[in-house]
């Protein structure tokens, strides 16, 4: 039987380990950006080559970071169909957004993916080169964002988007904005549905970093359908209506926790 003091000890250990995780992410990220990053780019000739190498490095670094969190006992993780993500190309990956770690978790399984990053990082002297080289997309203006997202998908890159635009409020149903659907329809690409859950809830919008849950966080990442979006485009209706239909459909799937309808292609 696990004694109460043992549980307490584990709880305080996880606060310390979580704090260490945050520090490591900052310091490690800086080290990778300044030391390893220039090194791996030495032999990359073209812009596309540099982009691929940069994204692969970020993916590997995130994978390493998650493995440290796991071995420190901050979290446990189970996945379903995760290998599907590796072979995807030219598609949009969408997910719900319960925690701060979602983007790190997903990119750790996506060696090649673009994502939308705060404009502020383009002015950050340390990270500017990383986000530029990786070809990430800035959220400067909505019009530019839409064009850039459509453009990268049309060139065959993958794109990771959280359709809620921000982290989900714990205990509330997901509210999808229509940007993701608009991008997918305009770029005419399929959408890969990924469902993330974190039990008990932590690192959400309403938690501070040190408010670790009583039990260890357990993450589940379920990779679901690869949805063809062309069925949502009709001759008689404008794209604005199609985007609404697609958004409603996706939101329903996530609210019901049903991201997997068919045997995954």
């Amino acid at each position, binding site marked *: 039987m696990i004694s109460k003091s043992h549980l307490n000890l584990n709880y305080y250990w996880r606060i310390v380990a979580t704090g260490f995780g945050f520090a490591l992410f900052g310091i490690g990220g800086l080290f990778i950006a300044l030391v390893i990053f220039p090194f791996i780019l030495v032999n990359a000739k073209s812009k596309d080559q540099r982009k691929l190498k940069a994204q692969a490095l970020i993916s590997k670094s995130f994978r390493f970071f998650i493995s440290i969190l796991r071995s420190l006992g901050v979290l446990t993780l189970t996945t379903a169909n995760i290998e599907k993500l590796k072979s995807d190309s030219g598609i949009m990956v969408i997910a719900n957004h319960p925690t701060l770690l979602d983007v790190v978790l997903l990119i750790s399984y996506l060696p090649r993916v673009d994502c939308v990053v705060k404009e502020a990082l383009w002015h950050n002297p340390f990270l500017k080169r990383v986000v530029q080289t990786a070809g990430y997309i800035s959220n400067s203006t*909505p019009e530019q964002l839409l064009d850039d997202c459509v453009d990268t998908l049309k060139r065959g890159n993958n794109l990771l988007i959280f359709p809620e635009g921000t982290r989900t409020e714990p205990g509330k149903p997901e509210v999808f904005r229509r940007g993701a659907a608009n991008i997918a329809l305009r770029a005419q690409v399929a959408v890969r549905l990924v469902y993330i859950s974190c039990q008990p809830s932590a690192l959400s919008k309403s938690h501070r970093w040190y408010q670790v849950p009583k039990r260890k966080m357990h993450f589940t990442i379920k990779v679901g359908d690869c949805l063809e979006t062309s069925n949502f485009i009709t001759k008689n209706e404008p794209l*604005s*209506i199609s985007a609404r239909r697609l958004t409603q459909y996706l939101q329903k799937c996530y609210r019901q926790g049903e991201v997997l309808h068919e045997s995954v292609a």
Partner: protein
Amino acid sequence: MDTKQAIFEHVKTALVDKFEVPAEAVCLEATLYEDLDLDSIDAVDLIITLQDYTKKKIQPESFKQVRTIQDLIEATQQLMDNS
């Protein structure tokens, strides 16, 4: 029918047909983003339909301040008067 009324009718039709806004929700005081649940992509689409209607090139900046249907109609009217 005066110009403002005509613009209003045009905007209303566009909102109902393209953006699934319930017809009864369209009034002068209604805000585009909050009350009518449009997003920035819809706003661009809406400007394009007004461009077709007025046969004038619209600079998105001149519509940056637009919050309500009333603002939208006035900005459009100004555009038509300006040349």
